[in-house]
């Protein structure tokens, strides 16, 4: 995973100096609470206006072409980090980063969502169907100008993972 999929700028959806750049970061944990140093996280998201960007350039970054997609391998401490823009959503809807997680020892990818705190979370059908503690695993923590989203593959704080209706799984 680390060998085959990493490339320069993979986690830089925009450069750090880009106006509006924010950091989305977190740690991936296993069921013993240990960090997972060989995971890979990918994100897909709309731009701040809530619109999807259908634009190439994700593999050859230039710091200003926002494509809405990025990839980051976790480091030795299980940590991943993206430089990106805050995703938007239409009025009355919750904004989130769509996330897919891979890891050594994880035999198939896991999908989840990292919702922005403070957006219209109560109106969201997924969140409102979850009890409070499970729901909390899908909501980013706002931090100075960015967001933290830890991912627990297993354990008491296990992240809610998703299947999509319409897929034959």
């Amino acid at each position: 995973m680390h060998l085959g999929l990493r490339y320069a700028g993979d986690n830089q959806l925009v450069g750090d100096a880009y106006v509006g750049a924010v950091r989305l970061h977190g740690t991936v944990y296993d069921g013993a609470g240990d960090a997972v140093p060989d995971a890979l996280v990918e994100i897909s998201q709309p731009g701040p206006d809530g619109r999807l960007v259908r634009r190439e350039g994700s593999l050859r970054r230039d710091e200003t072409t926002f494509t809405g997609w990025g990839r980051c391998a976790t480091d030795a401490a299980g940590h991943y980090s993206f430089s990106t823009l805050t995703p938007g959503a239409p009025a009355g809807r919750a904004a989130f980063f769509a996330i897919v997680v891979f890891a050594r020892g994880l035999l198939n990818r896991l999908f989840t969502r990292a919702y922005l705190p403070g957006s219209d979370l109560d109106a969201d059908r997924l969140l409102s169907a979850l009890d409070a503690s499970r729901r909390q695993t899908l909501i980013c923590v706002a931090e100075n100008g960015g967001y933290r989203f830890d991912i627990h593959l297993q354990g008491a704080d296990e992240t809610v993972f998703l299947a999509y209706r319409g897929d034959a799984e």
Partner: protein
Amino acid sequence: MKAAATPARTESQRAITAEIARIAADYQGKDAPQPLLNYPPYRSSRLRHPKCPVVCVDPDEVECWAPCFGSRDVEPVDADLTTGHSGQPIGERIIVTGRVLDAAGKPVAGQLVEIWQANAAGRYNHQLDQHPAPIDPNFTGVGRCLTEPDGTYRFLTVRPGPYPWRNHQNAWRPAHIHFSIFGTAFTQRLVTQMYFPGDPLFGLDPIYQSIVDPVARQRLIASYDHEVTQPEYATGYRWDIVVAGSRRTWAEPNGDHG
């Protein structure tokens, strides 16, 4: 993972094979075409699989689209793993080709396929790979291409060797090529492995056997295809990849049904 910090496993292949057989018997006749996330014979899966059931959702708009890649991202030479160095890699030169299709059989066109693999000696070009087999200075083992309008991808590479790993004592992975696939939607994302026909390690490998349905498992094995083979140059393998679901139209939910 720091390979040096991983304790050597003491379980025997015989014990692992017996676990594999027990799980296969439990699942006989059941519909389980995907890998089991909780597959104890693969030791690293034990703490890395969720125990809560996945929650079913209607995909949102962002989940109905895959990222967009193009000629800015990928050059034709990226699909040739035998080039870019001062010499030719050692090993059996092979062509690996096939189509990426969705569940309805429609081609996934213009989409990114990434591969990575060990060299002919079974060694990854990676500092964490400590297998005492030679690194090939002429082989990095990483490639990319975009699918054609009919979903076809094609790579030129060398056949990878099997290699030992630390799951249990005397554990060996069957020779394989890692594939990373995007469909037309975020929901179709897939990372998988392609194997070669007739590998004697299939029955012993907990990663391969984590797909307990034998028919589904077979789909990970490429076919030798003499039509793909090029005279005096390279043997050919064909392997088609089917991603979950089919292209869907995102329907904006009404009002508060976000």
